[in-house]
């Protein structure tokens, strides 16, 4: 390499898994002091590329050069020694150990063959001071918020490796304020000359912080550009490789507000969870629920669905008072809930697509009315077709599907029970732009079919796209409602940020 600014160059990387080409002659060049966004739909090969760079997988073909020297990365440990550090999406640290332990485990300062705790904690404090973190390094990591944990993970990775920092969707579970904190840190690291690889699904963040973008599609590089020279539309079309019509979804259909509110909740609330609120939803209506992480959105969904019991309030369906004390009650009333974290709450990874779809319906029918195999297959086929779930086979374990398709399977699971009222908690989190548009189209369609929907989302534009009414939450309380022409990104943002000087966290 003649260019001295190049830190890491990977050229012609190929990697196949049994019959499936995950990476096909991929080039990636990371320069000193740049933040490099790595984008692509799910299954485009981002994670495989990262795993090759960090030594989890060995490439079938291709060369990697670090500072002009050809390198071969055998395992994560060696990658760390070479200077390539990684922070994963779910913070992979040890909650049961102290902050200092987490920073130094495996490389503790030793004295006379024993760990020198005093020196370790002193060094931990010095290290975290660079990140403006002044916390007690001797207390357990679990005492701190995800954002702090993430900074600790970054501090560890940078301190150990210090040349290349790979961040795999670091902002997925952070709210705006925390994301800002992270970005400040990244800018500072960039000034120190680190090469940072930033994987994200938030395009806004790419433009906010990244210097250069590389887009992967189907295991190939679809393009690599300076962010400043790449308009957003072009970026999206690079990612999708198809016409944009489906994605520009800012046309909200004006639905008349239904006369009859079949589902009404009055004064529902639970202390320490969410303040009492009123909510009426009619069939053929989509209520968007906007607010920051931790503002009480998920808590509201849990109350409505009977996962948490309400301290106060009453519910009525079709004007008849009902009591919802458990999810079973809710399901019996025709409610459905797609939870936020599909990995832990939604899918059952080892079961097949068919079994995952049938689950809720079978549960509703009870133990003794088993659905026949043929009924199950028919049902699964129907939804695979209707929702365009991309899988080679309905008997494939769901864990092998991409995030967007997993999400559709969970949707199918609840749609199969024929719900009248469906709650979707972050239905588009962590899925790619294409699947995103499909889910939104699906929400619109379900609404047209006369279902009542409550959709929680962090993406305000998305909420604007499908909601007939929007409820805004802040600090564990419902703060306001917008309808009709008032539903705009700006108005929602204003409501979320209403009281000045408030810090959300």
């Amino acid at each position, binding site marked *: 390499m003649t260019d001295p600014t190049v830190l890491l160059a990977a050229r012609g990387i190929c990697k196949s898994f049994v019959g499936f080409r995950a990476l096909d002659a991929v080039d990636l060049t990371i320069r000193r002091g740049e933040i490099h966004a790595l984008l692509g739909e799910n299954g485009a090969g981002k994670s495989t590329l990262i795993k090759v760079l960090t030594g989890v997988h060995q490439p079938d073909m291709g060369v990697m050069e670090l500072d002009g020297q050809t390198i071969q990365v055998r395992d994560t440990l060696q990658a*760390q020694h070479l200077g390539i550090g990684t922070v994963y999406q779910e913070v992979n640290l040890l909650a049961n150990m102290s902050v200092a332990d987490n920073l130094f485990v495996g490389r503790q300062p030793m004295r006379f063959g024993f760990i020198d705790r005093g020196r370790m904690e002193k060094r931990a404090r010095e290290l975290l001071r660079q990140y403006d973190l002044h916390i007690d390094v001797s207390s357990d990591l679990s005492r701190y918020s995800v954002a702090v944990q993430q900074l600790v993970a970054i501090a560890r990775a940078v301190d150990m490796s210090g040349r290349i920092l790979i961040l795999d969707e670091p902002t997925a579970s952070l709210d705006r304020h925390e994301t800002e904190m992270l970005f400040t840190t990244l800018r500072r690291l960039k000034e120190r000359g680190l090469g940072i690889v930033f994987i994200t699904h938030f395009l806004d963040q790419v433009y906010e912080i990244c210097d250069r973008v590389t887009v992967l599609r189907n295991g190939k590089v679809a393009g690599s550009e300076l962010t400043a020279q790449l308009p957003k539309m072009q970026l999206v079309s690079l990612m999708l490789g198809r016409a944009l019509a489906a994605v520009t979804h800012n046309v909200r259909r004006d639905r008349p507000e239904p006369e009859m509110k079949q589902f009404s909740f009055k004064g529902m609330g639970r202390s320490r969870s969410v303040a009492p609120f009123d909510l009426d939803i009619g069939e053929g209506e989509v209520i968007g629920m906007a607010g920051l992480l931790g503002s009480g959105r998920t808590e509201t969904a849990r109350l409505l669905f009977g996962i948490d019991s309400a301290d106060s309030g009453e519910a009525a369906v079709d004007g008849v008072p009902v009591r919802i004390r458990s999810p079973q009650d809710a399901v019996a009333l025709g409610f459905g809930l797609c939870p936020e974290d599909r990995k832990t709450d939604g899918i059952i990874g080892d079961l097949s697509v068919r079994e995952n779809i049938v689950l809720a319906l079978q549960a509703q029918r009870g133990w003794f009315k088993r659905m026949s195999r043929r009924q199950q297959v028919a049902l699964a086929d129907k939804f695979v077709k209707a929702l365009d779930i991309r899988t080679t086979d309905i008997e494939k374990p769901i864990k092998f599907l991409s995030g967007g398709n997993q999400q559709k399977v969970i949707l199918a699971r609840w749609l199969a029970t024929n719900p009248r009222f469906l709650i979707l908690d972050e239905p588009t989190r962590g899925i790619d732009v294409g699947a995103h548009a499909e889910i939104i189209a699906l929400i619109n369609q379900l609404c047209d079919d006369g279902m009542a929907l409550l959709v929680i989302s962090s993406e305000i534009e998305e909420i604007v796209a499908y909601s007939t009414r929007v409820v805004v939450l802040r600090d564990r309380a419902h703060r306001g409602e917008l309808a009709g022409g008032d539903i705009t990104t700006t108005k929602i943002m204003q409501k979320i940020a209403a009281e000045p000087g408030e810090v959300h966290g």
Partner: protein
Amino acid sequence: MNTRLLPFYATLLICALAYTACVMQFPAMLSTRVAGNLLTDNAFLGIAAVGMTFVILSGGIDLSVGSVIAFTGVLLAVLITKYGVHPLAAFAIALIITTTFGAIMGLIIHYLDVPAFIVTLAGMFLMRGMCFVMTTDSIPINHEFYSMLQGMYYRLPGGGRLTFIGCLMVLVFLIGIVMAHFSKLGSYIYAIGGNRTSAQLMGIPVARTTITIYALSGFLSGLAGIVFSLYTSAGYSLAAVGVELDTIAAVVIGGTLLTGGVGYVAGTFVGVIIQGIIQTYIVFDGTLSSWWTKIVVGALLFAFIALQRTLVFLSTRKAMVNATA
């Protein structure tokens, strides 16, 4: 205050209360004689429990402990009495076998990804079976070296005896405590118990550590077997049945979380002593069945597991409140 230390303090408090209650009823229990015997009588249990603490801290379990103790006892008896091997050489052979046995279990657990429960259950049956292969009789050991070791003690003021095996147990505990908190191996064990995937991604040698943990447990079970053999002067195939459960009880009463990652070696020591105190009380009372030990230990276990769950619940709720505050 660190909520993590609470179970340990609770154990310490219960130990003190139990001892005080015993002394109130039987003032004779307040003597160095009783204290010395507590150490001697529970030496083998304590040594095995140190190994078990590390295994449980790492998120595993070792059910082979009791069988390994019996195996060691029978092996020593056969080697010394039948073949005239010097006890020291027999000790070395036994420790090599049990350590290797533990290491192999660790290998299987890690590389074949089989739950520790199953692997060590198989190990338990295997070792118990090996005892019967060697002999079905109870073989006495009469060797001057044994008599010498058994005769070694430090006389405490008040007539108590600090025996060789009692001291050995205390020494093992001290080494265990230092290892847990001041060695890299110790930090690796806590790390794996906390979250195995994370530990792996952080570059911790998970394979080597897992194997070392079970090898260590095998070694300490072997050492416990030697102590047991010194304590009883015999080797018998049916000895030490269920000792693994007593050690697990000691570990849990000592405040170690069964799911791994949280706990203290020192707590296990207190756990062992509590069991010893209950036994001593029953001996002093003279009318109670020895099964009362099991009943009280069972009740204590329930109490401690409930306590731990409550603490875990409270601390996660506190963390949630902190995170959203």
